[in-house]
């Protein structure tokens, strides 16, 4: 080991001898100059060393001072920047948040649910009280995670009791948008109204309000694009706009390019003191339907096939008010919510009957209809809540044009009274008993009794307002 190192050393000595000026030839003046240079270098180095030593001393003193000042935070100055807890590791750490909702029910209905209809309102979507007896309700599987630094994704699949699978929501959110914009794309429940965005298991009653059933076919979902924006002020003010394919009721699939439906809405709200929170909103939906066919009894009592082609406009005003003493909803709380719907439809209406008449007639059509519900839910002690809801629809003005010869304009006002009690032993389970008296057709009263369970497992759900 020593031998190889000798060679470079010997070489450098030889080089030095060859290159350096011969010392013996130096004059006194040169010697003095060299000494002076050495002295200067030494002084400058000493000064720098002293400065560095002083800095070291200062830093140490500061550390000691902080350490003594904060005996608890022994490594405080270092810990300040570095979090203590180590991040999760391993392949599974990247697994998305997964949750499942299990639901089932028992229904006792005095009227045949197969014959359910809302008199004066075109049927569409998923409406009615569901089947009698024991049954599963839809089971839901939700998967969500951040995709990368730009996107977050969410998939919610519904497994129906009939063993079919449907994609309830499957959307991406662009998380890096500027100006506070929150763009969302894919399939999602529209942000219109108050309840529409909530999944069925989060509702306070087992079924949707009649107005949702009559005007939106239960719940309005869409494949498309949504942009939401919250104003950068202390008062909550949110705007949203959506475009979609318009396949969902009250629209219908139309096999066309471009935008099939549009939604805009605005929400505002806030707190009043520590105990009250409020949100109000207005929404507007415009969509088109083609050959939205269904059957309807005509004046002669024939089961006629009717179809609508035209434009549908829906406007909704909604509010939700929540009260909890000092904002602590743990023991008791109360919430009151209501929504008012207007719908105007205009276009062509086709009347088609195979019976004795055997005729088909198409004529201009307009309708203006409204509906609303109001519900209150009171938690009277920990885990226990009771609720009451009233639904009412107004058939409004339906103008069948020339088809008025065969079809009668509706005059019946559908309504429903509902009571419920539920028990929520933890955030993850709920059992509910609900009783309702539903009058959706003239002279027909359906007494409905439901017993329902909702179990949530997996990732912690979000506490939506």
């Amino acid at each position, binding site marked *: 080991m020593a031998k190889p190192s000798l060679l470079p050393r010997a070489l450098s000595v030889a080089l030095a001898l060859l290159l350096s000026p011969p010392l013996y030839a130096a004059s006194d003046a040169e010697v003095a100059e060299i000494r002076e240079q050495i002295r200067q270098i030494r002084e400058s180095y000493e000064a720098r060393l002293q400065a560095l030593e002083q800095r070291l001393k200062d830093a140490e003193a500061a550390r000691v001072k*902080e350490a003594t*000042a*904060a*005996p*608890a*935070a022994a490594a*405080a*100055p270092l*810990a*300040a*920047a570095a*979090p*203590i*807890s180590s991040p999760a590791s391993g392949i599974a750490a990247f697994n998305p948040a997964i949750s499942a909702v299990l639901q089932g029910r028992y229904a006792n209905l005095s009227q045949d649910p197969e014959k359910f209809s809302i008199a004066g309102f075109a049927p569409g979507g998923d409406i009615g009280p569901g089947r009698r007896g024991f049954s599963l309700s839809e089971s839901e599987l939700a998967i969500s995670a951040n995709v990368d630094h730009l996107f*977050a994704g969410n998939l919610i699949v519904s497994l129906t009791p009939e063993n079919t699978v449907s994609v309830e929501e499957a959307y991406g*959110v662009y*998380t*890096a*948008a*500027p100006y*506070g*914009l*929150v763009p969302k794309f894919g399939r999602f429940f529209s942000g219109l109204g108050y309840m529409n965005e909530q999944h069925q298991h989060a509702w306070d009653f087992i079924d949707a309000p009649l107005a949702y059933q009559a005007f939106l076919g239960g719940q309005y979902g869409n494949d498309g694009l949504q942009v*939401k*924006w*919250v*104003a*950068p*002020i*202390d*008062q*909550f*003010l*949110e705007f949203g706009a959506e475009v979609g394919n318009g396949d969902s009721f009250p629209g219908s699939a139309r096999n066309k390019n471009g935008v099939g439906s549009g939604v805009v809405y605005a929400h*505002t*709200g*806030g*707190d009043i003191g*520590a105990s009250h*929170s*409020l*949100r109000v909103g207005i929404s507007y939906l415009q969509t088109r339907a083609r050959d939205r066919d269904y059957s309807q009894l005509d004046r002669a009592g024939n089961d006629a096939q009717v179809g609508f082609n035209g434009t549908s406009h829906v406007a909704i005003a909604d509010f939700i008010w929540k009260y909890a003493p*000092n*904002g*602590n*909803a*743990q*023991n008791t709380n109360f919430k009151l919510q209501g929504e008012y719907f207007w719908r105007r439809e205009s276009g062509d209406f086709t009347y088609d009957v195979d019976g004795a008449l055997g005729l088909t007639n198409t004529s201009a059509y307009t309708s203006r209809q409204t509906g609303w519900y109001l519900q209150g839910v009171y938690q009277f002690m*920990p885990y226990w809540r009771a609720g009451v809801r009233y639904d009412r629809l107004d058939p409004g003005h339906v103008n069948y044009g020339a088809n008025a010869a065969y079809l009668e304009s509706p005059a019946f006002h559908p309504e429903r009274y509902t009571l419920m009690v539920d028990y929520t*032993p*933890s*955030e*993850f389970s709920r059992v509910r008993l609900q009783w309702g008296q539903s009058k959706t057709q003239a002279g027909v009263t359906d007494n409905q009794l439901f017993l329902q369970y909702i179990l949530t*497992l997996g990732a*912690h*759900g*979000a*506490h*939506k*307002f």
Partner: protein
Amino acid sequence: MTSFKSWLLAVALGVWAAPALANLNVFATVPEWGALVEELGGDKVKVYTATNALQDPHHVEAKPSLIARARGADLVVATGAELEIGWLPLVTQQAGNPKVQAGKPGYFEAASFVTILDKPARLDRAEGDVHAAGDPHIQTDPRNIARVAGALSARLAELDPGNAAFYQTRYKAFADRWNAAIARWEKEAAPLRGVAILVQHKAFTYLIAWLGMKEVASLEPKPGVEPTIAHLSEVLETVQRQPVKMVIRAAYQSDRASQWIAERAKINVVVLPFTVGGDDAAKDLFGLFDDTVQRLLKGAQ
């Protein structure tokens, strides 16, 4: 029409003026961090505290007011350790404020700067409302506040470098006062060492560890599950074998269970402020621990 116009004007002014106010808009999830930011930031910060001391910070909804405040925040100061898991992710997502999303400098989690106790060995909701990350109620030990203060001060300086020296000076001053106060509280609380107590909810792990008290039992059969008569009777039996001085609960919790056990076991009920604003004396962080220690000493008599 005029009122609509003035409203529009107010909105326009608000949009224009909002970013021009205080240097840092801070959104604190719970009062203790709101108070700490005020100690460290002084008039350079504008603090909004999302919850009050009478609320259970776990059971909060993504209210419109919270979304609006998160929208304009430069910094969100949260406890973390899943305390706010039910609402904060939803609030920051809906607010559409990229500055305060998790992982960004504008998102601060206090729990990552302290040693978390009570990490569950078995992660199962059959064990109640367990937090996978451990007990998130870190603010009941003032030494944790000191640790968080250092990190939080550094974060304020990072976000507002122009005032870095100001934050450093304030932190130094706070740390000096705080450590002196800790020494005082520890001295005052010396008689509490080894004192056996009951807790209503397992929310005082850090306080108990700090003062060396002994938690004999919890009134809740499982964390987050309301006390039942059956479980309270068991606790009563335990207490008869193993005497305790008091039962402690947080200001936001119902008083029924602790009253029930106190009457039968002939012990004191001590209602602790739990956080800033939990009672009249807990006006700031110093008041919080002054009062906590005094109440415990009184309860131990």
